[in-house]
């Protein structure tokens, strides 16, 4: 379960502070769900890890932020933090998260089976799966 075992960064800087410091190369930057995405994208490659905050589990902005980071070519770690539960991990992984900090009280051991449960993906996303019509299986 790589998702849970990515080593925690030594230091995490809030996005605003990082910007104020001139966006230096750092270990990890934490962005909120309302981050200015066009501003973030060109700067992202300067950090090893980007943490995206989920203020409440129903707030889905983080999914698009991760997707856009990957599309922009960001290859560092994208970590989901905040109100993160096992039932969203499969979608998180698809859009480009590769590290997850679960909130308290979650059954981490369920994650592999929850990811496995739905294997058919109709859409393209950051996981490299093309849309279903590009796969050979759909005949």
């Amino acid at each position, binding site marked *: 379960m790589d998702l849970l075992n990515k080593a925690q960064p030594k230091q995490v800087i809030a996005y605003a502070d990082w910007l104020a410091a001139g966006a230096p190369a750092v270990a990890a930057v934490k962005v909120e769900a309302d981050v200015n*995405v066009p501003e973030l994208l060109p700067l992202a490659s300067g950090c090893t890890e980007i943490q995206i905050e989920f203020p409440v589990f*129903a707030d889905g902005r983080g999914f698009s932020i991760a997707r856009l980071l990957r599309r922009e070519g960001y290859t560092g770690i994208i970590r989901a933090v905040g109100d993160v539960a096992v039932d*969203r991990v499969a979608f998180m992984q698809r859009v480009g998260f590769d590290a997850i900090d679960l909130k308290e009280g979650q059954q981490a051991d369920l994650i592999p089976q929850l990811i496995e449960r*739905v294997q058919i993906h109709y859409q393209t996303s950051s996981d490299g799966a*093309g*849309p279903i*019509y590009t796969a050979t299986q759909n005949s």
Partner: protein
Amino acid sequence: MYAYSTVDQQLVNERVAQFRDQTQRFLKGEIADDEYRMLRLMNGIYIQRHAPMLRVAVPYGQMSSQQLRALAEVSRTYDKGYGHFTTRQNIQFNWPELARIPDILADLAQVQMHAIQTSGACIRSITSDPLAGVSTDEIADSRPWCEIIRQWSSLHPEFAYLPRKFKIAVTGAKADRAAVQVHDIGLRLVHNFQGDLGFEVLVGGGLGRTPMIGQVIREFLPTEHLLSYLEAILRIYNLHGRRDNKYKARIKILLKSMGLEDFTQQVEAEWQVIKHSDLQLPAEEIARVSQHFGKPAYLSLAQASCDKVVSVADQEYQRWLQHNVLTHQQPGYRIVMVPLKNPMSPPGDISHQQMDGLADLAEQFSFGNIRSTHDQNLVLAHVAEKDLYALWQGLTELSLARANHGTLTDMINCPGLDYCSLANAETLVLSRGINQAFDDLDYLYDLGPIELKISGCINACGHHHIGHIGILGVEKAGQQVYQFTLGGSDSEAARLGKTLGRSIPQDQVVATINTLLTTYLSLRHGIGESFSEVVNRLGLQPFKEAVYGSAKQSAA
């Protein structure tokens, strides 16, 4: 009709297993209430006033006889023997037990049905013109595009937690029978000046608390770019739609606050990036899906038509022919409207016997195809003229031949207080009263086409804003009262109705409708001028005077 590939079937099966697991963990206390709420909603389950409610998708209103029988079976086995067709072409069961819903879904999966995204803050099941492929005003068949959107939107990993529900409707005809102008995204198939097929794209329509008509953000979108354009709109909405206030979270509010120009420019900029990605639909995929919607094996005109059948001298039958039967693209064939507007039950309700009986009739007379409409009726879309009389007899036996299509009593009515936990008003009491008061078909025919739409609260599931006569239930000081709007329309150029005046108490609603109708009759320029045309010509004033004047007199 679209038939699942092995992949489509696998996805639906996997979704059933996933939901079963989520429900079991919830019942064991392993998923918190608020989280499970989101998870069940995106699979069509509400917890309502009396019990859970399960909303099953009827994708773009298309069903087979086999599927309708399966729905009948579900209503018998797990519910109270009936179902309720909604204004978004889906079907609801009002009394299932939560623990058994996974079994219902497993049963439905066997006939290629599901409840995926029939509710929740996600891309909802796609709606369309119930007369797709058969209407005489068709530009192109909308169904292949609906299916392509259904697949793209199903379990989309990025758009499952949107600010609010997101509704998409598609039409391929000139008349708007899918209410595309009051959807978050409305798509109209059009030809450009070169004769190529594409979509006119409308965004930001919707009813509810802040009713708005959708605005055109792109006049022509080539069909192969359908998914990239939708994805661009959804991405902008997901990132920027308001999350702090659920009443301001729909895309219509975002469009308004950003302004049409700015919004469109952001969508177009995002689209430019993804337009030529693998979201661009390959011609083979369009062809693969389209082949599922070919014409059925129609008989020749000589075999299908029969003058004798059309001229059977039975008054009831002739009325039905005139009002419930429409012309068809195919010579010798007709479209038959099957109203679900029984005076004694809520609009849209259908019993399990009726479902089974109708499934049989469809198999016998309509290539096993049944459609649901956004005004809560059903349609048999391919009936040979020679079969009309036999079909009418069959429908009459099932009490499904009431010849009131398009009249006042063919009304839309949300379930209201009887079923919905949000309701302010007993809308069903109203529909019963209206049916009793206006049961003379000749009078209804004389009144001409009138769309009466009733909602039990501001959420506007009954689409009251776009009714020629709209009625909205509101609560004032503990009393159920009703606000009337006039002049709405869901035709080619949709319009929102205007408020008539102060709210009307429940016991005066029928009398008020009657006043509106007699006022109309006295003002119209002959039978050719419809109710909504008179309202357009004269405005609300004469109706206001008639209603509030007469209310004063009756109080005195």
